[in-house]
């Protein structure tokens, strides 16, 4: 018996004397959240580096005799000569459904004061985007709930659609409406018990924004009941540039978890202009060579590798990306906007002039496009909105011409009149997404000239009344349109009856 005990004791002795190997370095210089390190001969690119006091750094520059490292977290306690060590791990963030309804920072740590997040899985922040073989073409719609977008610039699951415009044109509003609409669809779909229903989970990444704006967004989502399907990744303006640089990649990792596990997710990057600025700041401090507008040479790759991670995977789920870019004085040809336009599958351009005219959402029909096109639309929308974009583009051209006060022929006047009605019909208050069946119904009514005898100024009210009538009185019809996703003769007849009934009772 004693021999057995001795054997165990020997084993314990062996284990207790086991040494731990670590690769170390020292801080040579530290400034603006970036440290220059000596040593660390084993460090890998993008590896996490442990600083004294619990701060984490990311090795971004591996040079012949020094390592450039951005520090995430508090740097106030660090000084020259402090010892740092490699961790052998790439930066990872918690992922999974436990994050839904929570606001986290760029490292996935909660910032909403609702306690720790019980997440068992971690995904690396930087990951190679899915390749060609595993991808599937985009064909399933992702409804934004905004009529102008769903009918003319449809977005599909797995698509990258840029939202671009000057400040204060409603870019964030479009994305918030989209997130709210996903929550609404999720609730209806999950309540219906349909086994084929695929909910869409949302991730909102706030980069370089004011904390007050982030709180406002959270409040809006909570009020609409959308927060339970949403993760908020916050890297506000007060955060250091390293966190702002990492936040979209952290959000993408969280979205990838849904995609890899057969679910659909939507990610909003608000906004990538500020992300590029944060990266420029880091690059300049790291003394990387600067190029156009002082951005580093790899600023295109910065966004392309991020947006390429949005995809629809064969046999799995999808990740749809809605990046936001802020332009200056409507300049689409600036460096970052052109980069992101070329990476994405289309863009929604919001015009200041339209916004100021009260046309909200201020979508510029001529400059907005979805490269996925009608393959991401249900048949019902295609039936009622097929010609809308052309009609509206024609209207804008004629409207500009008509401003000169020239005499117009009857056909042109009719076109202008119709265009004016379409514009009015597309006006939609914020935080009020409209279901696709309702959109199809009132666009059908418009195509069938139900609004033609209503004064243009009263179209918005009339459309709202029609929507209210259909929702309160004709819900079974709307359910049928949603289920069939197409307008057949039977449904058209029912719609006609419903619209006739509404029109008979409508008083302008």
């Amino acid at each position, binding site marked *: 018996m004693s021999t057995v005990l001795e054997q165990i004791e020997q084993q314990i002795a062996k284990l207790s004397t086991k040494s731990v190997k670590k*690769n170390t370095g020292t801080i040579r210089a530290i400034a603006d959240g970036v440290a220059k390190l000596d040593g660390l*001969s084993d460090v890998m690119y993008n590896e996490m580096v442990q600083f004294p006091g619990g701060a984490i750094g990311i090795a971004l520059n591996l040079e012949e005799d020094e390592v450039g490292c951005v520090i995430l977290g508090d740097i106030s306690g660090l000084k020259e000569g402090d010892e740092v060590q490699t961790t052998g791990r790439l930066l990872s963030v918690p992922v999974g459904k436990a994050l839904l309804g929570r606001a986290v920072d760029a490292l996935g740590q909660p910032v909403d004061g609702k306690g720790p997040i019980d997440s068992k899985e971690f995904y690396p922040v930087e990951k190679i985007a899915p390749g060609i073989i595993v991808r599937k073409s985009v064909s399933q719609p992702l409804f934004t709930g905004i009529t102008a977008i769903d009918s003319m610039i449809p977005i599909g699951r797995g698509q990258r659609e840029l939202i671009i415009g000057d400040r204060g044109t409603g870019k964030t509003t479009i994305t918030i409406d989209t997130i709210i609409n996903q929550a609404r669809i999720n609730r209806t779909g999950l309540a219906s018990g349909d086994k084929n229903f695929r909910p869409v989970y949302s991730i909102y990444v706030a980069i370089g924004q004011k904390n007050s704006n982030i709180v406002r967004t959270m409040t809006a989502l909570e009020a609409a009941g959308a927060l339970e399907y949403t993760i908020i990744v916050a890297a506000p303006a007060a955060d250091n540039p390293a966190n702002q640089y990492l936040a979209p990649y952290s959000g993408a990792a969280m979205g990838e978890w849904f995609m890899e596990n057969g679910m659909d997710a939507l990610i909003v990057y608000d906004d990538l202009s500020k992300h590029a600025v944060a990266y420029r700041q880091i690059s300049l401090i790291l003394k990387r060579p600067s190029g156009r507008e002082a951005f580093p040479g790899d600023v295109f790759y910065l966004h392309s590798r991020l947006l390429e991670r949005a995809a629809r995977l064969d046999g799995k789920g999808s990740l749809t990306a809605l990046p936001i870019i802020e332009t200056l004085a409507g300049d689409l040809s600036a460096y970052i906007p052109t980069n992101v336009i070329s990476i994405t599958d289309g863009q929604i351009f919001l015009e200041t002039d339209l916004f100021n005219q009260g046309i909200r959402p201020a979508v510029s029909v001529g400059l907005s496009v979805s490269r996925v096109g009608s393959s991401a639309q249900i048949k019902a929308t295609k039936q009622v909105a097929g010609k809308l974009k052309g009609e509206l583009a024609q209207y804008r051209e004629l409207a500009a011409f008509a401003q000169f006060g020239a005499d117009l022929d009857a056909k042109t006047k009719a076109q202008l009149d119709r265009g004016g009605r379409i514009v009015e019909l597309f006006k939609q208050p914020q935080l009020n997404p409209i279901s696709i069946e309702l959109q199809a119904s009132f666009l059908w009514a418009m195509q069938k000239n139900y609004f033609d005898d209503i004064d243009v100024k009263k179209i918005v009210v009339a459309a709202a009344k029609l929507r209210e009538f259909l929702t309160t009185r004709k819900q079974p019809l709307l359910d049928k349109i949603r289920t069939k996703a197409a307008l057949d003769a039977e449904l058209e007849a029912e719609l006609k009856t419903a619209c006739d009934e509404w029109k008979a009772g409508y008083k302008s």
Partner: protein
Amino acid sequence: MSAATKQAKTLARQLFNLSLVDGAVSAERVQGVLAYVEKSSPPNALLVLRLYHHLVSVELARRIALVEHAGSIEPTVLKAIAAAMTQHYGRAITSTAKPNPSLIAGLRVRVGDDVYESSAASRLQALSSAC
């Protein structure tokens, strides 16, 4: 980085390469290099010498196993560590003892950037950070 600093770095690297014999720093060559710098006094000589010093010290640290210990240490242990490190890294490594009471018990061996921790202090620290 300014052109002068870049030039100094290149020269320091060249001088360092000249100081190596079979991959190891040779005391004789180092003396030769120092004599050359004194005689020719290249531009930015002070910076060149500082950079050269850094390169030589890093290289020397790679060939010495600095054994920090809390209690006493037997010469046989030092020899065994030197032999093990020589085998592990594939280069001749000598060991030097350095008393460090803050370790409480055990050893810490440093070879260049690599640190092998087997001390009571490091375990206590790991425990406190895990709590």
